[in-house]
């Protein structure tokens, strides 16, 4: 089942770039600093070859599709009709949960940075409803939306990086040699986690690709985004030091709060946090859309599936980790582990099964 409205790889990469900003900002400055110390920025760069390799594997998996075949169909061909549908549903349920988690994360960011006393449901419900509507349709809406938003978001990041330069101290970033290789290597894990999630979404959304699509473009985009995130992490660690960065729940927005533009404009963290809602919206919508496609083989072509997926995500998001401390533990510990299990075990497992069964 191919998508009815195709889009180009450039449009899809724009969507993936915007989507990556949400988990990247949640994990990279803080978790990288906690694991890799002052070398947190370096660990992001070191993770890029592994991310490119994982992307190449997924790309190769996706290329096994026959003419007109969708990824869920390929998945079922590889793992068997029923078992494949069950594994797909498992993946779909995980993505559905991740959509709910993204909604909760978005609310937590707004609470931490702008509205400290607000009820999380105030943010979860409108964003969840909007994302459910967008995710119930075709992916083409999302990629076109992302194409418009990408320059805005990347421009905001670049601007804050530029104005953060005077706050950076080389002492906070160097030397990294004294720490040894192990922390730096451990620090690559958050980057790989973010990259794996977005690349899996790219794999599922590549069903709708039209025109010539080469993996070189994907690899280039991974390198570009990775470098940008390394620069952002360097800015945060350079300004606060890795010890303080690891303690802050929203280190990037704490940095933005410190910035003063041309001695006249300051306190723009609320504006930046509001801009990030676009990234949350697109990520949630894409997750719901892909989750719906994954659940479809098991649930059949039910008209209620999009609404049910959206409602489930909203309900989970409203009930998920009411206390901020529980949410932080979930965000930094359990979600990355579960995501790694799905991206690095389930999907390669399906591919391996297909190869063993000589169906791929």
């Amino acid at each position, binding site marked *: 089942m191919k998508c009815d409205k195709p889009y180009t790889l450039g449009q899809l990469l724009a969507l993936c770039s915007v989507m990556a900003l949400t988990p990247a900002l949640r994990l990279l400055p803080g978790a990288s600093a906690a694991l890799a110390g002052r070398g947190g920025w370096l660990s992001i760069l070191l993770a890029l070859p592994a991310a490119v390799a994982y992307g190449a594997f997924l790309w190769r998996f996706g290329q096994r599709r026959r003419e007109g075949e969708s990824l869920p169909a390929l998945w079922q061909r590889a793992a068997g009709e029923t078992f494949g549908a069950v594994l797909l549903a498992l993946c779909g349920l995980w993505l559905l949960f991740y959509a709910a988690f993204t909604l909760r994360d978005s609310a937590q960011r707004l609470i931490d*940075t702008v509205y400290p006393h607000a009820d999380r449901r105030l943010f979860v419900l409108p964003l969840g409803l909007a994302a459910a509507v967008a995710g119930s349709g075709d992916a083409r809406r999302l990629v076109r939306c992302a194409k418009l938003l990408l320059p805005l978001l990347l421009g905001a990041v670049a601007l804050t990086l530029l104005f953060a330069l005077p706050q950076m101290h080389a*002492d906070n970033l160097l*030397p990294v040699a004294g720490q040894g290789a192990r922390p730096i290597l451990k620090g690559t894990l958050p980057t790989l986690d973010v990259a794996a999630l977005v690349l899996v979404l790219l794999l599922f959304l590549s069903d709708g690709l039209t025109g010539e699509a080469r993996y070189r473009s994907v690899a280039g985009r991974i390198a570009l985004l990775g470098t940008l995130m390394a620069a952002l992490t360097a800015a945060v660690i350079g300004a*606060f*030091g890795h*010890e*303080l960065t690891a303690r802050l729940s929203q280190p990037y927005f704490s940095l933005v*709060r*410190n910035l003063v533009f041309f001695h006249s404009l300051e306190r723009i963290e609320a504006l930046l946090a509001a801009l990030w809602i676009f990234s949350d919206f697109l990520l949630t919508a894409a997750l719901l859309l892909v989750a719906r496609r994954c659940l479809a083989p098991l649930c059949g072509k039910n008209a209620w599936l999009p609404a049910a997926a959206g409602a489930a995500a909203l309900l989970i998001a409203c009930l998920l980790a009411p206390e901020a401390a529980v949410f932080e533990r979930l965000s930094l510990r359990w979600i990355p582990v579960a995501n790694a299990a799905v991206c690095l075990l389930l999907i390669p497992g399906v591919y391996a099964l297909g190869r063993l069964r000589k169906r791929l």
Partner: protein
Amino acid sequence: MIRQFRNAMLLSIIIIVGLCLGGCGLREQAREVDELLVMQTMGLDSDPRGVLLSLSSAASAAPDNPPVRLQSAGASITTALEHIRVGANEEDLFCAHIGHLLIGEAAARKGIRPALDYVCRSGDLRLSVPLYILRERDAQEAVLGTGDKSFGICDALDSVDADLRARGDGHCASAADILRDLERYDSALVCAVAFRPSAETDQSAGAEDRPQTVLPDGYAVLKGGALCGFLDREQAVGVGFLTGNTGICELTVTDQAGLPVTLMLTGGKCTLEPRWTDDGRLEALGVQVEAEALLAEGSANNTSLDYLEMMLERALSEHVRQVLQLSKQWKADFLGLEGRLERLSPRKMRALNPDFAVRWPSLPLTVSVSARLTGTGDVEDRP
């Protein structure tokens, strides 16, 4: 046609909902900007109830419109702030532009971790807010008593901040800097200020009626989050060299005739030379200071410039030694020497056993200072 109508309806609904979500008109607590009372300085003291919080706004440009000063106590900073909000007959308090955090000496001796924790968690305060410790006084005295109708504590601390940016005998550390240093070295330097009569004089008033102000007064040293001592302004010159914050500052020495000569330090640097044993132990530390200065005041005809350079070296050496000695005595690496050594020899520092904090109090030191007079103003003095 139906599709266009549907899209138009959808767009109208989105616009109407968007307008309703503006958040201003529908909330009872909506506030206009000109109704906000923008507080710019926060003072913290210890109190039997917990915390004594003092706030001050900046002086208004309008005459006879002095800064607004508020005070209340509470179990914590947050509760004290709430008491001020409720109890003050003022407009809405706005604390997002607090630009200075002043802590009284007694409160600092008990520990400033709660204050730093508040800065970290607060949605209002920035981590870049500079922090000061008021010597021998409570912060409330300075917050409520600085200045007169035309200036207040905010203007005084702005002036301290601007002054120290160019100078080498002080530095305004931000809350983020202090938090980082406490995490990294378990000690930190904080700008110390003193509450003294202002230099501004009023012809109609006597000297005793001069308004009070805050002035830079060296550094306060924190260890484990609590104040453990002060470094005076002359020792702060030594700190400037040892931490790489060299700026302009004056130093007075005596010439061969015993007359005072003022030298203006214009720059310099400090090099660390660790001596390692073959088995990787840190045996000793050499500290080499190089300074440049100008002859600012005093006749060089009474003495040779070489003699002045020697006197400068002696004075600087004394300040540097005193600072290093205090650091060892207090077992507090507030100079961040461990970090500097780590940059010089990362692998050796990583393998160092026992670690630097343990080794530092008993580490043999050698200090050498070389000073150079690079100018004598617009006078040809050199014989």
